[in-house]
């Protein structure tokens, strides 16, 4: 069993701030440990790329400066990304890119960065920064992470969240839901990074991608003792 698995890391330089490259590393290693052969394609602002060609697409969080450049670039890819999402390409977008996968991000100063409208969601800048450890309930069990955002995201009725908040804030200070999900596209505010300590979620992304392209129907279990221990520490840690 040596199927290939192509992972695109979108904006690795522009949106690189919260250790998010650990998510790509986790996808690569967990695929390798099962005997698959992942390759990573890094795609920067302005570089030619068709998201329909890859199995998994990842994009992370960045500084505001990065987000403006990325916002413009994303507009040029809006149709391609929406088409790829409809076709079932697996995606994980975190924080800054998650916000831009919604319809719009309105900054505190009233400046509007248009999103690609993949999620039925709007984000509005706030003076309150939501910071701290988070635990959510998700279809893959409890997920842990660290949130750090001033943009507050509100989902339309009917837009599914990634999970419900057990501890922390999530999308905004009031709704008690975290992230968004549409087809196989997952958006979240969870850093940490999110995948290393939530191996069931990481494996869901890998399996969904392999099932779609290679008909793989299950992954060999791995020894996740250390991953679970690290997650437990976060659940028990102060907010």
């Amino acid at each position: 069993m040596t199927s290939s698995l192509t992972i695109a890391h979108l904006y690795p330089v522009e949106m690189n701030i919260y250790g998010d490259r650990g998510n790509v590393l986790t996808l690569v290693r967990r695929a390798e440990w099962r005997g698959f052969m992942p390759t990573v394609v890094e795609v920067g602002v302005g570089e030619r790329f068709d998201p329909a060609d890859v199995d998994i697409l990842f994009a992370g969080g960045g500084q505001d400066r990065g987000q403006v450049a990325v916002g413009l670039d994303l507009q040029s890819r809006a149709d391609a990304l929406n088409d790829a999402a409809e076709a079932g390409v697996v995606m994980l977008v975190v924080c800054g890119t998650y916000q831009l996968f919604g319809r719009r991000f309105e900054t505190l100063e009233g400046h509007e960065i248009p999103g690609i409208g993949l999620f039925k969601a709007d984000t509005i800048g706030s003076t309150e920064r939501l910071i701290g450890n988070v635990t959510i309930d998700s279809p893959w069990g409890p997920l842990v992470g660290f949130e750090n955002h001033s943009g507050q995201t509100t989902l339309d009725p009917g837009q599914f969240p990634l999970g419900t908040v057990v501890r922390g804030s999530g999308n905004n200070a009031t709704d008690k839901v975290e992230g968004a999900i549409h087809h196989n596209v997952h958006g979240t505010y969870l850093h940490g990074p999110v995948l290393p300590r939530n191996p069931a979620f990481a494996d869901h992304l890998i399996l969904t991608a392999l099932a779609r392209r290679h008909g793989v129907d299950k992954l060999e279990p791995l020894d996740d003792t250390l991953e679970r221990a690290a997650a437990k520490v976060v659940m028990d840690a102060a907010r």
Partner: protein
Amino acid sequence: MPNHPDRSPGARAVVANGVGKAVLGLRRMTRGGGSALPGLVAERIDPHMVGRLAAQLPGGVIVITGTNGKTTTTKMLVAILEANGSRVLTNRSGSNLSRGVASALLERSAWRGRLAEDIAVFEVDEASMPAVCAELRPSTVMVLNLFRDQLDRYGELDSTANVIGRALAGLDGSATVCLNADDPLVASLARYCERPEVRWFGVDVDGIAKLDHDAASDSDHCPQCGHALDYDKSFYSHLGHYRCPEGHVERPIPEVTLRSFEAVDDEASHLLVEVDGSALSVQLPLPGLYNAYNAVAALCGARSRGLSLTDAAEALTHVTAPFGRVERVDVNGRRLQLLLVKNPTGFNQIIQTFLAEPNDTRLMLAINDGFADGRDLSWLWDVAIEDIAPGAFVLCTGVRAADMALRFKYAGVEADVVPDVDEGLAELLRRTPPGESAEVLANYTATLELREKLNGQAAIKRFWQ
């Protein structure tokens, strides 16, 4: 910013000073070490006490800020000034928030608010810069570098730069600002210095092998147009010789330049520094290119004060590392080297200096998640763990031992996990034979914890000197 027309300590100032000193005395008796509390109390009673005290110093105030190297550079500049015969006031124990600075001033003032020193050198936390500079009116400000640090506490790097810029914009016209030419974000701060004079320091050496997995480049884009900068030379993180492809920015030519860097051993380096076309040789009893940066920054600061750089170079030969930065401790015949790691760039510099060459290193990492550490440890995934050469073993301890071990696991290295620091240290000593050495990397509160444990087992000087 209020001026201080009345330089004599008024009754309110004398009371504030007295109460502050009393609190300081109490703190010393009950817990040892200075702290922010005396400064806080005095500040409440007389908010301009700090400014009044600082204004007495004939040599003025030197302020040092930046992400990494503040404490070491402060120590270097103090040594240089003291060798020149100055009586120097400083905040030695890394209490670098505005209240720590206030406490340092209070501690040295007599009961009626008089200072015996000539000049002050303070390390100042980036976020405290506007308040501290407005109150102290420094005559020299040095900005060492800007790397991503504890994001949950400080927010993003660009906003940190803006905060420092605000402080620089408010400086007196007679002030001097020393900036790192090799850091594009620091160099961009020159735009805030309309009135103060800007002086540059930097590095121009060949043969520095940047780590393969150095992903901690935070500001390698043009601050004006956002294009990726072109680099002729790259040392670590975003430090190097850069130019915007659109021509907006270019590395300034520094007046104090490191021309050659040679590691003597794990404990010392030999530097050749060029100033005004002549070469200055410095035997620095500290390892690593990052300490060489601190040294050229300190020399730039000394030059801006008109001091002899030959004397300054001589003073640098006696500088020792501050608390936890690089420290060697003998425990029952085992040599432990304690190294403080706080952010990806600092961690990468430790790897580049001590851990990148093949060796039989016994390595312990102590990682906590206290407020002073930053509660978000995502940054561990930005560290070039893959560049650590295989050694004897890796042992992870501290509250976040499992997180650290997980990072090693995904870099292909199996690490042992012993969360309790006491037990972790015991395990390290058990597995390190007498006569052998081990490297101990720890973040801030883990360093404090280790010091406390080691205090019982070895003679270490107290860190609040």
